[in-house]
Protein backbone atom coordinates (compact mmCIF):
# COMPACT_ATOMS: atom_id res chain seq x y z
CA UNK A 1 0.00 0.00 0.00
CA UNK A 2 2.63 2.52 1.08
CA UNK A 3 4.86 1.31 -1.74
CA UNK A 4 2.05 1.70 -4.22
CA UNK A 5 1.44 5.26 -3.08
CA UNK A 6 5.15 6.01 -3.12
CA UNK A 7 5.39 4.80 -6.72
CA UNK A 8 2.27 6.71 -7.68
CA UNK A 9 3.71 9.85 -6.14
CA UNK A 10 6.94 9.49 -8.08
CA UNK A 11 5.09 8.69 -11.28
CA UNK A 12 3.12 11.91 -10.89
CA UNK A 13 6.42 13.68 -10.31
CA UNK A 14 7.69 12.54 -13.72
CA UNK A 15 5.46 15.01 -15.40
CA UNK A 16 5.09 17.65 -12.74
CA UNK A 17 3.50 20.25 -14.93
CA UNK A 18 0.84 17.89 -16.24
CA UNK A 19 0.10 16.56 -12.77
CA UNK A 20 -0.04 20.08 -11.36
CA UNK A 21 -2.45 21.31 -13.99
CA UNK A 22 -4.67 18.24 -13.68
CA UNK A 23 -4.86 18.73 -9.93
CA UNK A 24 -5.42 22.44 -10.46
CA UNK A 25 -8.28 21.79 -12.88
CA UNK A 26 -9.87 19.52 -10.32
CA UNK A 27 -9.27 22.12 -7.61
CA UNK A 28 -10.72 24.94 -9.67
CA UNK A 29 -13.80 22.86 -10.38
CA UNK A 30 -14.23 22.26 -6.68
CA UNK A 31 -13.54 25.90 -5.79
CA UNK A 32 -16.06 27.07 -8.35
CA UNK A 33 -18.72 24.74 -6.99
CA UNK A 34 -17.99 25.84 -3.44
CA UNK A 35 -18.36 29.46 -4.50
CA UNK A 36 -21.59 28.87 -6.39
CA UNK A 37 -23.07 26.80 -3.58
CA UNK A 38 -22.18 29.50 -1.08
CA UNK A 39 -23.48 32.32 -3.24
CA UNK A 40 -26.79 30.58 -3.84
CA UNK A 41 -27.07 29.73 -0.18
CA UNK A 42 -26.21 33.30 0.75
CA UNK A 43 -28.70 34.66 -1.75
CA UNK A 44 -31.57 32.67 -0.33
CA UNK A 45 -30.56 33.29 3.24
CA UNK A 46 -30.30 36.99 2.43
CA UNK A 47 -33.67 37.03 0.70
CA UNK A 48 -35.28 35.18 3.60
CA UNK A 49 -33.59 37.51 6.02
CA UNK A 50 -34.75 40.68 4.26
CA UNK A 51 -38.22 39.30 3.93
CA UNK A 52 -38.35 38.53 7.65
CA UNK A 53 -36.85 41.86 8.64
CA UNK A 54 -38.81 44.05 6.25
CA UNK A 55 -42.07 42.27 5.89
CA UNK A 56 -43.09 38.97 7.40
CA UNK A 57 -41.32 38.95 10.75
CA UNK A 58 -40.62 35.54 12.26
CA UNK A 59 -44.35 35.31 12.55
CA UNK A 60 -47.41 37.51 12.17
CA UNK A 61 -50.65 37.35 14.07
CA UNK A 62 -53.73 38.28 12.04
CA UNK A 63 -57.47 37.88 11.97
CA UNK A 64 -58.71 34.52 10.75
CA UNK A 65 -60.25 36.11 7.70
CA UNK A 66 -57.37 38.40 6.76
CA UNK A 67 -55.99 37.83 3.27
CA UNK A 68 -52.72 39.65 2.85
CA UNK A 69 -52.96 39.58 -0.92
CA UNK A 70 -56.18 41.60 -0.89
CA UNK A 71 -55.03 44.11 1.75
CA UNK A 72 -58.56 44.19 3.12
CA UNK A 73 -59.34 47.06 5.45
CA UNK A 74 -62.74 45.80 6.62
CA UNK A 75 -62.79 45.86 10.42
CA UNK A 76 -63.71 42.21 10.71
CA UNK A 77 -60.58 41.28 8.78
CA UNK A 78 -58.34 43.27 11.10
CA UNK A 79 -56.87 42.92 14.59
CA UNK A 80 -58.65 45.14 17.12
CA UNK A 81 -56.77 46.86 19.96
CA UNK A 82 -53.47 46.05 18.29
CA UNK A 83 -51.28 48.00 20.73
CA UNK A 84 -52.60 46.05 23.64
CA UNK A 85 -52.16 42.70 21.88
CA UNK A 86 -48.68 43.65 20.71
CA UNK A 87 -47.75 44.55 24.26
CA UNK A 88 -49.00 41.19 25.52
CA UNK A 89 -47.04 39.30 22.87
CA UNK A 90 -44.01 41.48 23.49
CA UNK A 91 -44.05 40.38 27.13
CA UNK A 92 -43.39 36.75 26.16
CA UNK A 93 -39.88 35.59 26.99
CA UNK A 94 -38.96 34.38 23.48
CA UNK A 95 -40.15 37.58 21.78
CA UNK A 96 -37.73 40.31 20.80
CA UNK A 97 -40.32 42.74 19.46
CA UNK A 98 -44.01 42.68 18.59
CA UNK A 99 -45.45 45.60 16.69
CA UNK A 100 -48.73 46.29 14.89
CA UNK A 101 -48.75 47.16 11.21
CA UNK A 102 -51.57 48.42 9.07
CA UNK A 103 -51.29 47.80 5.33
CA UNK A 104 -53.32 49.80 2.82
CA UNK A 105 -52.99 50.20 -0.91
CA UNK A 106 -52.93 53.63 -2.43
CA UNK A 107 -51.61 55.89 -5.14
CA UNK A 108 -48.87 58.41 -4.60
CA UNK A 109 -48.78 61.47 -6.86
CA UNK A 110 -46.20 64.20 -7.26
CA UNK A 111 -46.04 66.65 -10.13
CA UNK A 112 -47.63 64.83 -13.04
CA UNK A 113 -46.45 61.38 -11.96
CA UNK A 114 -48.35 58.81 -9.96
CA UNK A 115 -47.39 55.41 -8.69
CA UNK A 116 -49.20 52.59 -6.87
CA UNK A 117 -47.85 52.24 -3.35
CA UNK A 118 -48.33 50.22 -0.25
CA UNK A 119 -49.00 52.46 2.71
CA UNK A 120 -47.74 50.93 5.92
CA UNK A 121 -48.78 52.25 9.28
CA UNK A 122 -46.10 51.55 11.86
CA UNK A 123 -45.26 52.32 15.45
CA UNK A 124 -42.04 54.32 14.93
CA UNK A 125 -40.87 53.64 18.47
CA UNK A 126 -41.06 49.85 18.35
CA UNK A 127 -37.82 47.90 18.23
CA UNK A 128 -39.52 45.87 15.52
CA UNK A 129 -39.10 48.86 13.17
CA UNK A 130 -35.51 49.68 14.05
CA UNK A 131 -34.46 48.33 10.70
CA UNK A 132 -36.26 51.20 8.95
CA UNK A 133 -34.80 53.72 11.35
CA UNK A 134 -31.33 52.44 10.59
CA UNK A 135 -32.01 52.49 6.84
CA UNK A 136 -32.65 56.28 6.81
CA UNK A 137 -30.55 58.07 4.23
CA UNK A 138 -32.10 61.53 4.29
CA UNK A 139 -34.45 63.71 6.27
CA UNK A 140 -35.84 62.51 9.56
CA UNK A 141 -37.44 59.39 10.96
CA UNK A 142 -41.11 59.48 11.96
CA UNK A 143 -42.47 60.35 15.38
CA UNK A 144 -45.62 58.61 16.63
CA UNK A 145 -47.66 61.80 16.69
CA UNK A 146 -46.65 63.05 13.24
CA UNK A 147 -49.95 63.78 11.44
CA UNK A 148 -48.65 64.68 8.00
CA UNK A 149 -45.27 63.10 7.53
CA UNK A 150 -44.38 59.99 5.54
CA UNK A 151 -41.19 58.01 4.86
CA UNK A 152 -40.51 56.57 1.47
CA UNK A 153 -37.97 54.28 -0.14
CA UNK A 154 -35.17 55.91 -2.08
CA UNK A 155 -36.18 54.23 -5.33
CA UNK A 156 -39.72 55.54 -5.04
CA UNK A 157 -38.51 59.04 -4.11
CA UNK A 158 -36.26 59.07 -7.16
CA UNK A 159 -39.06 57.92 -9.41
CA UNK A 160 -41.33 60.69 -8.18
CA UNK A 161 -38.50 63.22 -8.03
CA UNK A 162 -39.00 63.88 -4.32
CA UNK A 163 -36.68 64.88 -1.53
CA UNK A 164 -37.31 65.40 2.21
CA UNK A 165 -39.59 68.37 2.79
CA UNK A 166 -41.45 67.99 -0.53
CA UNK A 167 -45.16 67.42 -0.67
CA UNK A 168 -46.84 64.29 -1.88
CA UNK A 169 -50.44 63.58 -2.74
CA UNK A 170 -51.77 60.28 -1.39
CA UNK A 171 -54.96 58.51 -2.39
CA UNK A 172 -55.90 55.56 -0.20
CA UNK A 173 -58.58 52.87 0.02
CA UNK A 174 -60.55 53.07 3.21
CA UNK A 175 -62.31 50.64 5.52
CA UNK A 176 -65.75 51.36 4.14
CA UNK A 177 -64.68 50.73 0.53
CA UNK A 178 -64.26 54.35 -0.49
CA UNK A 179 -61.10 56.31 -1.07
CA UNK A 180 -59.62 59.28 0.70
CA UNK A 181 -56.99 61.73 -0.41
CA UNK A 182 -54.59 63.98 1.47
CA UNK A 183 -51.36 65.92 1.00
CA UNK A 184 -48.41 64.71 3.08
CA UNK A 185 -44.84 65.87 3.52
CA UNK A 186 -41.88 63.64 2.76
CA UNK A 187 -40.25 63.50 6.18
CA UNK A 188 -37.44 61.20 5.33
CA UNK A 189 -36.07 58.72 2.84
CA UNK A 190 -34.77 55.22 3.55
CA UNK A 191 -32.78 52.70 1.60
CA UNK A 192 -33.04 49.05 2.64
CA UNK A 193 -30.99 47.96 -0.40
CA UNK A 194 -33.92 45.81 -1.36
CA UNK A 195 -35.29 47.32 -4.57
CA UNK A 196 -38.47 45.23 -4.43
CA UNK A 197 -39.33 46.83 -1.12
CA UNK A 198 -38.00 50.36 -1.60
CA UNK A 199 -39.84 51.05 -4.83
CA UNK A 200 -43.33 50.70 -3.41
CA UNK A 201 -43.35 51.18 0.36
CA UNK A 202 -44.43 54.26 2.17
CA UNK A 203 -44.54 54.57 5.95
CA UNK A 204 -46.66 56.70 8.20
CA UNK A 205 -47.35 56.49 11.96
CA UNK A 206 -49.94 53.86 12.79
CA UNK A 207 -52.37 56.36 14.38
CA UNK A 208 -52.34 58.54 11.28
CA UNK A 209 -52.75 55.53 9.00
CA UNK A 210 -55.73 54.35 11.02
CA UNK A 211 -57.32 57.79 10.83
CA UNK A 212 -56.59 58.16 7.10
CA UNK A 213 -58.07 54.76 6.19
CA UNK A 214 -60.93 54.86 8.70
CA UNK A 215 -59.78 51.71 10.47
CA UNK A 216 -59.65 53.38 13.89
CA UNK A 217 -58.12 51.16 16.56
CA UNK A 218 -57.22 48.30 14.16
CA UNK A 219 -54.15 46.87 12.47
CA UNK A 220 -53.65 44.33 9.68
CA UNK A 221 -51.12 42.23 11.53
CA UNK A 222 -49.01 42.07 14.64
CA UNK A 223 -45.50 41.58 13.37
CA UNK A 224 -43.37 39.50 15.76
CA UNK A 225 -39.59 39.12 15.82
CA UNK A 226 -38.16 36.41 18.05
CA UNK A 227 -34.89 36.26 19.90
CA UNK A 228 -34.31 32.84 18.36
CA UNK A 229 -35.91 31.88 15.06
CA UNK A 230 -36.02 28.24 16.18
CA UNK A 231 -38.77 29.17 18.66
CA UNK A 232 -41.13 30.02 15.80
CA UNK A 233 -43.13 26.80 16.01
CA UNK A 234 -43.89 26.82 19.75
CA UNK A 235 -44.59 30.58 19.83
CA UNK A 236 -46.89 30.27 16.81
CA UNK A 237 -48.77 27.47 18.55
CA UNK A 238 -49.08 29.55 21.73
CA UNK A 239 -50.44 32.56 19.85
CA UNK A 240 -53.04 30.76 17.78
CA UNK A 241 -56.53 31.38 19.19
CA UNK A 242 -60.09 31.02 18.00
CA UNK A 243 -59.93 34.63 16.84
CA UNK A 244 -56.45 34.89 15.38
CA UNK A 245 -54.30 32.85 13.11
CA UNK A 246 -50.52 32.90 12.99
CA UNK A 247 -48.46 32.90 9.86
CA UNK A 248 -44.84 31.83 10.30
CA UNK A 249 -42.02 33.15 8.16
CA UNK A 250 -41.91 29.81 6.36
CA UNK A 251 -45.58 29.99 5.41
CA UNK A 252 -45.27 33.64 4.42
CA UNK A 253 -42.22 32.94 2.26
CA UNK A 254 -43.44 29.81 0.54
CA UNK A 255 -42.40 31.13 -2.87
CA UNK A 256 -38.90 31.66 -1.63
CA UNK A 257 -38.69 28.15 -0.20
CA UNK A 258 -40.01 26.76 -3.50
CA UNK A 259 -37.56 28.71 -5.63
CA UNK A 260 -34.74 27.63 -3.37
CA UNK A 261 -35.70 24.01 -3.80
CA UNK A 262 -35.78 24.54 -7.57
CA UNK A 263 -32.43 26.34 -7.51
CA UNK A 264 -30.96 23.45 -5.57
CA UNK A 265 -32.00 20.98 -8.20
CA UNK A 266 -30.41 23.15 -10.91
CA UNK A 267 -27.33 23.26 -8.75
CA UNK A 268 -27.19 19.49 -8.53
CA UNK A 269 -27.18 19.49 -12.32
CA UNK A 270 -24.37 22.02 -12.37
CA UNK A 271 -22.40 19.93 -9.88
CA UNK A 272 -22.72 16.95 -12.18
CA UNK A 273 -21.45 18.93 -15.15
CA UNK A 274 -18.42 20.24 -13.31
CA UNK A 275 -17.69 16.82 -11.80
CA UNK A 276 -17.94 15.28 -15.27
CA UNK A 277 -15.35 17.77 -16.51
CA UNK A 278 -13.15 16.89 -13.54
CA UNK A 279 -13.52 13.22 -14.43
CA UNK A 280 -12.54 13.93 -18.04
CA UNK A 281 -9.36 15.68 -16.94
CA UNK A 282 -8.39 12.75 -14.73
CA UNK A 283 -9.19 10.15 -17.37
CA UNK A 284 -7.13 12.08 -19.90
CA UNK A 285 -4.13 12.43 -17.59
CA UNK A 286 -4.16 8.78 -16.62
CA UNK A 287 -4.65 7.56 -20.19
CA UNK A 288 -1.56 9.48 -21.20
CA UNK A 289 0.28 7.89 -18.29
CA UNK A 290 -0.83 4.41 -19.36
CA UNK A 291 0.36 4.97 -22.93
CA UNK A 292 3.66 6.45 -21.86
CA UNK A 293 4.37 3.70 -19.40
CA UNK A 294 3.12 0.69 -21.35
CA UNK A 295 6.53 -0.94 -21.36
CA UNK A 296 7.02 -0.41 -17.64
CA UNK A 297 3.65 -1.95 -16.99
CA UNK A 298 4.90 -4.91 -19.05
CA UNK A 299 8.05 -5.12 -16.93
CA UNK A 300 6.10 -5.01 -13.69
CA UNK A 301 3.75 -7.64 -15.03
CA UNK A 302 6.70 -9.80 -16.14
CA UNK A 303 8.20 -9.75 -12.67
CA UNK A 304 4.89 -10.92 -11.29
CA UNK A 305 2.75 -7.87 -10.53
CA UNK A 306 -0.88 -8.88 -10.64
CA UNK A 307 -3.60 -7.01 -12.48
CA UNK A 308 -5.15 -5.81 -9.23
CA UNK A 309 -1.91 -4.22 -8.14
CA UNK A 310 -1.38 -2.55 -11.50
CA UNK A 311 -4.86 -1.10 -11.17
CA UNK A 312 -4.11 -0.02 -7.62
CA UNK A 313 -1.17 2.03 -8.91
CA UNK A 314 -3.44 4.06 -11.14
CA UNK A 315 -6.05 4.46 -8.43
CA UNK A 316 -3.31 5.69 -6.15
CA UNK A 317 -2.20 8.22 -8.77
CA UNK A 318 -5.73 9.42 -9.19
CA UNK A 319 -6.24 9.55 -5.45
CA UNK A 320 -3.11 11.63 -4.99
CA UNK A 321 -4.11 13.98 -7.80
CA UNK A 322 -7.49 14.31 -6.15
CA UNK A 323 -6.03 15.01 -2.71
CA UNK A 324 -3.72 17.65 -4.17
CA UNK A 325 -6.51 19.14 -6.25
CA UNK A 326 -8.95 19.10 -3.36
CA UNK A 327 -6.46 20.88 -1.11
CA UNK A 328 -5.92 23.54 -3.76
CA UNK A 329 -9.66 23.73 -4.34
CA UNK A 330 -10.45 24.11 -0.66
CA UNK A 331 -7.88 26.88 -0.24
CA UNK A 332 -8.96 28.68 -3.41
CA UNK A 333 -12.64 28.10 -2.70
CA UNK A 334 -12.38 29.27 0.91
CA UNK A 335 -10.68 32.48 -0.17
CA UNK A 336 -13.32 33.15 -2.84
CA UNK A 337 -16.18 32.29 -0.47
CA UNK A 338 -14.65 34.45 2.27
CA UNK A 339 -14.39 37.41 -0.13
CA UNK A 340 -17.90 36.87 -1.44
CA UNK A 341 -19.21 36.57 2.10
CA UNK A 342 -17.45 39.73 3.19
CA UNK A 343 -17.97 41.96 0.15
CA UNK A 344 -20.76 40.36 -1.85
CA UNK A 345 -21.63 41.12 -5.46
CA UNK A 346 -23.71 44.05 -6.62
CA UNK A 347 -26.66 42.81 -8.66
CA UNK A 348 -28.92 45.87 -8.58
CA UNK A 349 -32.61 45.32 -9.12
CA UNK A 350 -33.03 42.06 -10.95
CA UNK A 351 -36.76 42.54 -10.67
CA UNK A 352 -37.92 39.14 -9.48
CA UNK A 353 -41.44 39.73 -8.35
CA UNK A 354 -42.51 38.08 -5.15
CA UNK A 355 -38.98 37.92 -3.78
CA UNK A 356 -37.32 40.58 -1.70
CA UNK A 357 -33.83 40.24 -3.06
CA UNK A 358 -31.20 42.67 -1.86
CA UNK A 359 -29.28 44.73 -4.43
CA UNK A 360 -26.14 42.91 -3.33
CA UNK A 361 -25.70 39.18 -2.87
CA UNK A 362 -23.54 38.03 -0.01
CA UNK A 363 -22.33 34.47 0.02
CA UNK A 364 -22.86 32.31 3.06
CA UNK A 365 -20.37 29.45 3.52
CA UNK A 366 -22.18 26.30 2.42
CA UNK A 367 -20.26 24.00 4.74
CA UNK A 368 -22.33 20.86 4.36
CA UNK A 369 -22.40 21.25 0.57
CA UNK A 370 -18.65 21.74 0.77
CA UNK A 371 -18.19 18.44 2.57
CA UNK A 372 -20.44 16.64 0.10
CA UNK A 373 -18.66 18.22 -2.88
CA UNK A 374 -15.22 17.36 -1.51
CA UNK A 375 -16.16 13.74 -0.99
CA UNK A 376 -17.90 13.64 -4.39
CA UNK A 377 -14.82 15.08 -6.11
CA UNK A 378 -12.64 12.42 -4.53
CA UNK A 379 -15.00 9.62 -5.49
CA UNK A 380 -15.34 10.93 -9.04
CA UNK A 381 -11.55 11.06 -9.36
CA UNK A 382 -11.29 7.43 -8.26
CA UNK A 383 -14.09 6.37 -10.59
CA UNK A 384 -12.41 8.22 -13.42
CA UNK A 385 -9.29 6.12 -12.83
CA UNK A 386 -11.25 2.95 -13.42
CA UNK A 387 -11.05 2.92 -17.20
CA UNK A 388 -7.33 3.75 -17.51
CA UNK A 389 -6.58 1.29 -14.69
CA UNK A 390 -8.47 -1.51 -16.44
CA UNK A 391 -6.71 -0.64 -19.68
CA UNK A 392 -3.33 -0.91 -17.95
CA UNK A 393 -4.22 -4.15 -16.19
CA UNK A 394 -5.45 -5.74 -19.43
CA UNK A 395 -2.20 -5.11 -21.28
CA UNK A 396 -0.66 -8.40 -22.35
CA UNK A 397 2.85 -8.50 -20.90
CA UNK A 398 4.33 -9.57 -24.24
CA UNK A 399 2.76 -6.70 -26.15
CA UNK A 400 3.52 -4.25 -23.37
CA UNK A 401 7.18 -5.27 -23.28
CA UNK A 402 7.52 -4.74 -27.01
CA UNK A 403 5.85 -1.37 -27.12
CA UNK A 404 8.21 1.30 -28.32
CA UNK A 405 10.61 -1.19 -29.97
Amino acid at each position, binding site marked *: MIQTIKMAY*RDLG*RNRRRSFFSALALGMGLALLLLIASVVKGEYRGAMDSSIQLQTGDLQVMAKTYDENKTSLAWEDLVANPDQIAAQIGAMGQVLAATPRLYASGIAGAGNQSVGVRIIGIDPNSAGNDIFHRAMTGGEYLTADDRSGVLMGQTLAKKLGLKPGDSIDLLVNTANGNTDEQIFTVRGIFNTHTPGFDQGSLFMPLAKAQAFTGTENHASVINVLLKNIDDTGPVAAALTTSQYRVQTYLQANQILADTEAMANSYMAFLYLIVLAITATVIVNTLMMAVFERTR*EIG*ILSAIGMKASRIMAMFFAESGLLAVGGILMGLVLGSVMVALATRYGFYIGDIGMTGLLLGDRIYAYPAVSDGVVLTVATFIVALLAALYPAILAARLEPVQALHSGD
Partner: protein
Amino acid sequence: MDVAKVENVTRVFRIGKVETAALRGVNLTVESGEFTALVGPSGSGKTTLLQLIGCLDQPTSGRVYINGKDVSKLSRNQRADVRRGALGFIFQFFALIPTLTAYENIEMPLLLAGEKASARKARVTELLDAVGLSDRAGNRPDQLSGGQQQRVAIARALATRPSLILADEPTANLDTPNGQQVMEIMTRLNQETGVTFVFATHDPRVIKYAHRVVTLRDGCVVETAGEEKIAAGV
Protein backbone atom coordinates in the same frame (compact mmCIF):
# COMPACT_ATOMS: atom_id res chain seq x y z
CA MET B 1 14.64 -32.48 -11.89
CA ASP B 2 13.45 -30.58 -14.95
CA VAL B 3 13.11 -26.89 -14.37
CA ALA B 4 11.30 -26.38 -17.64
CA LYS B 5 9.90 -28.76 -20.18
CA VAL B 6 8.46 -27.85 -23.57
CA GLU B 7 6.40 -30.47 -25.38
CA ASN B 8 5.39 -30.18 -29.04
CA VAL B 9 4.89 -26.49 -28.68
CA THR B 10 3.66 -24.40 -31.58
CA ARG B 11 2.99 -20.72 -31.55
CA VAL B 12 1.17 -19.14 -34.44
CA PHE B 13 0.80 -15.36 -34.64
CA ARG B 14 -2.11 -14.07 -36.59
CA ILE B 15 -2.11 -10.53 -37.87
CA GLY B 16 -5.23 -10.01 -39.91
CA LYS B 17 -5.33 -12.95 -42.32
CA VAL B 18 -1.61 -13.58 -42.25
CA GLU B 19 -0.48 -16.38 -40.03
CA THR B 20 3.12 -16.71 -38.95
CA ALA B 21 4.21 -19.91 -37.27
CA ALA B 22 6.97 -18.71 -34.95
CA LEU B 23 7.38 -22.14 -33.39
CA ARG B 24 6.47 -25.38 -35.17
CA GLY B 25 6.63 -28.20 -32.66
CA VAL B 26 9.43 -27.53 -30.25
CA ASN B 27 10.58 -30.05 -27.66
CA LEU B 28 13.07 -29.01 -25.06
CA THR B 29 13.98 -29.95 -21.54
CA VAL B 30 15.93 -27.64 -19.29
CA GLU B 31 17.45 -29.24 -16.23
CA SER B 32 18.27 -27.61 -12.96
CA GLY B 33 21.60 -25.80 -12.95
CA GLU B 34 21.92 -25.52 -16.71
CA PHE B 35 23.57 -22.55 -18.37
CA THR B 36 22.09 -22.76 -21.82
CA ALA B 37 22.28 -20.55 -24.89
CA LEU B 38 19.46 -20.35 -27.41
CA VAL B 39 20.84 -19.45 -30.81
CA GLY B 40 19.57 -19.19 -34.33
CA PRO B 41 19.02 -16.64 -37.04
CA SER B 42 16.79 -13.65 -36.61
CA GLY B 43 13.16 -14.69 -36.72
CA SER B 44 13.88 -18.28 -35.78
CA GLY B 45 11.72 -18.07 -32.68
CA LYS B 46 14.14 -17.54 -29.78
CA THR B 47 12.22 -14.71 -28.17
CA THR B 48 8.94 -16.50 -28.71
CA LEU B 49 10.24 -19.62 -27.00
CA LEU B 50 11.62 -17.67 -24.04
CA GLN B 51 8.27 -15.91 -23.64
CA LEU B 52 6.44 -19.22 -23.59
CA ILE B 53 8.79 -20.73 -21.03
CA GLY B 54 8.52 -17.46 -19.12
CA CYS B 55 4.71 -17.66 -18.91
CA LEU B 56 4.51 -14.28 -20.62
CA ASP B 57 2.69 -15.88 -23.53
CA GLN B 58 0.71 -19.05 -24.17
CA PRO B 59 1.37 -21.73 -26.81
CA THR B 60 -1.04 -22.28 -29.67
CA SER B 61 -0.67 -25.99 -29.02
CA GLY B 62 1.55 -28.23 -26.93
CA ARG B 63 2.50 -27.95 -23.30
CA VAL B 64 4.92 -26.03 -21.17
CA TYR B 65 5.88 -27.28 -17.70
CA ILE B 66 7.66 -25.25 -15.06
CA ASN B 67 9.02 -27.29 -12.17
CA GLY B 68 6.77 -30.11 -13.31
CA LYS B 69 3.63 -28.00 -13.37
CA ASP B 70 1.68 -27.48 -16.59
CA VAL B 71 1.48 -23.74 -17.16
CA SER B 72 0.13 -23.73 -20.71
CA LYS B 73 -3.48 -23.18 -19.71
CA LEU B 74 -3.19 -20.92 -16.69
CA SER B 75 -5.10 -17.67 -16.22
CA ARG B 76 -3.33 -14.32 -16.34
CA ASN B 77 -3.11 -14.01 -12.60
CA GLN B 78 -1.95 -17.59 -12.17
CA ARG B 79 0.78 -16.97 -14.73
CA ALA B 80 1.78 -13.83 -12.82
CA ASP B 81 2.09 -15.99 -9.71
CA VAL B 82 4.33 -18.48 -11.53
CA ARG B 83 6.50 -15.66 -12.89
CA ARG B 84 6.84 -14.11 -9.47
CA GLY B 85 7.65 -17.36 -7.72
CA ALA B 86 9.70 -19.43 -10.13
CA LEU B 87 11.05 -17.17 -12.88
CA GLY B 88 13.36 -14.24 -13.35
CA PHE B 89 13.74 -12.11 -16.47
CA ILE B 90 16.54 -10.18 -18.05
CA PHE B 91 15.73 -8.27 -21.20
CA GLN B 92 17.76 -6.83 -24.01
CA PHE B 93 16.70 -3.31 -23.11
CA PHE B 94 17.55 -2.52 -19.53
CA ALA B 95 14.12 -3.07 -18.19
CA LEU B 96 14.25 -1.12 -14.96
CA ILE B 97 11.55 1.11 -13.53
CA PRO B 98 12.88 4.63 -14.00
CA THR B 99 11.27 6.11 -10.89
CA LEU B 100 12.83 3.54 -8.60
CA THR B 101 16.42 3.43 -7.38
CA ALA B 102 18.68 0.43 -8.04
CA TYR B 103 17.84 -0.75 -4.55
CA GLU B 104 14.09 -0.34 -5.05
CA ASN B 105 14.15 -2.04 -8.44
CA ILE B 106 15.77 -5.10 -6.92
CA GLU B 107 13.36 -4.94 -3.99
CA MET B 108 10.24 -4.86 -6.21
CA PRO B 109 9.86 -8.64 -6.79
CA LEU B 110 10.37 -9.19 -3.06
CA LEU B 111 7.64 -6.67 -2.31
CA LEU B 112 5.35 -8.39 -4.77
CA ALA B 113 6.14 -11.70 -3.08
CA GLY B 114 5.16 -10.17 0.27
CA GLU B 115 8.57 -10.50 1.94
CA LYS B 116 9.11 -8.77 5.27
CA ALA B 117 11.10 -5.53 5.32
CA SER B 118 14.06 -7.00 7.16
CA ALA B 119 14.27 -9.98 4.81
CA ARG B 120 14.02 -7.65 1.81
CA LYS B 121 16.79 -5.47 3.08
CA ALA B 122 19.13 -8.38 3.69
CA ARG B 123 18.43 -9.86 0.27
CA VAL B 124 18.80 -6.61 -1.69
CA THR B 125 22.05 -5.79 0.09
CA GLU B 126 23.39 -9.24 -0.68
CA LEU B 127 22.41 -8.97 -4.36
CA LEU B 128 23.82 -5.48 -4.81
CA ASP B 129 27.06 -6.87 -3.49
CA ALA B 130 26.88 -9.90 -5.77
CA VAL B 131 26.61 -7.70 -8.88
CA GLY B 132 29.18 -5.23 -7.54
CA LEU B 133 26.84 -2.25 -7.17
CA SER B 134 26.69 -1.72 -3.43
CA ASP B 135 27.79 1.87 -3.87
CA ARG B 136 25.02 2.54 -6.41
CA ALA B 137 22.06 1.45 -4.31
CA GLY B 138 20.48 4.90 -4.24
CA ASN B 139 20.93 5.70 -7.94
CA ARG B 140 18.07 5.84 -10.35
CA PRO B 141 18.48 4.01 -13.69
CA ASP B 142 19.26 7.23 -15.56
CA GLN B 143 22.24 7.70 -13.25
CA LEU B 144 23.65 4.27 -14.16
CA SER B 145 25.56 3.06 -17.24
CA GLY B 146 24.01 0.42 -19.49
CA GLY B 147 26.23 -2.27 -17.96
CA GLN B 148 25.29 -1.19 -14.45
CA GLN B 149 21.61 -1.16 -15.34
CA GLN B 150 21.85 -4.66 -16.74
CA ARG B 151 23.57 -5.81 -13.56
CA VAL B 152 20.71 -4.33 -11.53
CA ALA B 153 18.32 -6.25 -13.80
CA ILE B 154 20.25 -9.46 -13.09
CA ALA B 155 20.05 -8.82 -9.37
CA ARG B 156 16.33 -8.15 -9.68
CA ALA B 157 15.83 -11.38 -11.65
CA LEU B 158 17.55 -13.30 -8.85
CA ALA B 159 15.79 -11.57 -5.98
CA THR B 160 13.11 -14.15 -5.18
CA ARG B 161 15.54 -17.05 -5.72
CA PRO B 162 13.73 -18.33 -8.80
CA SER B 163 14.65 -21.69 -10.23
CA LEU B 164 15.01 -20.36 -13.77
CA ILE B 165 16.24 -17.09 -15.23
CA LEU B 166 15.40 -16.25 -18.81
CA ALA B 167 17.52 -13.68 -20.59
CA ASP B 168 16.76 -12.42 -24.08
CA GLU B 169 19.95 -11.09 -25.67
CA PRO B 170 21.17 -9.67 -22.36
CA THR B 171 24.37 -8.28 -23.88
CA ALA B 172 23.05 -7.03 -27.22
CA ASN B 173 23.00 -3.42 -26.08
CA LEU B 174 26.34 -3.52 -24.28
CA ASP B 175 29.90 -3.00 -25.45
CA THR B 176 32.33 -5.93 -25.24
CA PRO B 177 33.78 -5.28 -21.77
CA ASN B 178 30.34 -4.69 -20.25
CA GLY B 179 28.91 -7.68 -22.06
CA GLN B 180 31.72 -9.82 -20.73
CA GLN B 181 31.21 -8.55 -17.22
CA VAL B 182 27.50 -9.35 -17.40
CA MET B 183 28.21 -12.86 -18.69
CA GLU B 184 30.81 -13.41 -16.00
CA ILE B 185 28.41 -12.38 -13.29
CA MET B 186 25.74 -14.68 -14.71
CA THR B 187 28.23 -17.56 -14.88
CA ARG B 188 29.40 -16.97 -11.33
CA LEU B 189 25.85 -16.82 -9.98
CA ASN B 190 25.02 -20.01 -11.86
CA GLN B 191 27.98 -21.76 -10.24
CA GLU B 192 27.55 -20.31 -6.77
CA THR B 193 23.78 -20.58 -6.40
CA GLY B 194 22.92 -23.25 -8.92
CA VAL B 195 20.24 -21.11 -10.53
CA THR B 196 19.39 -22.16 -14.07
CA PHE B 197 19.98 -19.71 -16.93
CA VAL B 198 18.59 -19.84 -20.44
CA PHE B 199 19.61 -16.98 -22.68
CA ALA B 200 19.04 -16.14 -26.29
CA THR B 201 21.92 -14.61 -28.20
CA HIS B 202 23.53 -14.01 -31.57
CA ASP B 203 26.87 -13.11 -30.17
CA PRO B 204 29.65 -15.75 -30.57
CA ARG B 205 31.54 -14.15 -27.68
CA VAL B 206 28.53 -14.87 -25.48
CA ILE B 207 27.85 -18.35 -26.83
CA LYS B 208 31.21 -19.52 -25.58
CA TYR B 209 30.03 -19.08 -21.97
CA ALA B 210 27.24 -21.61 -22.49
CA HIS B 211 27.39 -25.19 -21.26
CA ARG B 212 24.77 -26.18 -23.76
CA VAL B 213 23.63 -24.59 -26.99
CA VAL B 214 20.21 -25.08 -28.48
CA THR B 215 19.87 -24.01 -32.09
CA LEU B 216 16.56 -22.96 -33.55
CA ARG B 217 15.77 -22.55 -37.21
CA ASP B 218 12.38 -21.64 -38.63
CA GLY B 219 10.65 -22.41 -35.39
CA CYS B 220 12.20 -25.81 -34.86
CA VAL B 221 15.04 -27.03 -32.67
CA VAL B 222 17.60 -28.27 -35.16
CA GLU B 223 20.50 -29.09 -32.87
CA THR B 224 21.55 -29.18 -29.28
CA ALA B 225 25.20 -29.35 -28.41
CA GLY B 226 26.97 -30.12 -25.15
CA GLU B 227 30.12 -28.60 -23.74
CA GLU B 228 32.51 -30.82 -25.67
CA LYS B 229 31.19 -29.58 -28.99
CA ILE B 230 31.20 -25.95 -27.95
CA ALA B 231 34.73 -26.28 -26.73
CA ALA B 232 35.63 -27.87 -30.03
CA GLY B 233 34.13 -24.83 -31.72
CA VAL B 234 31.79 -26.82 -33.91
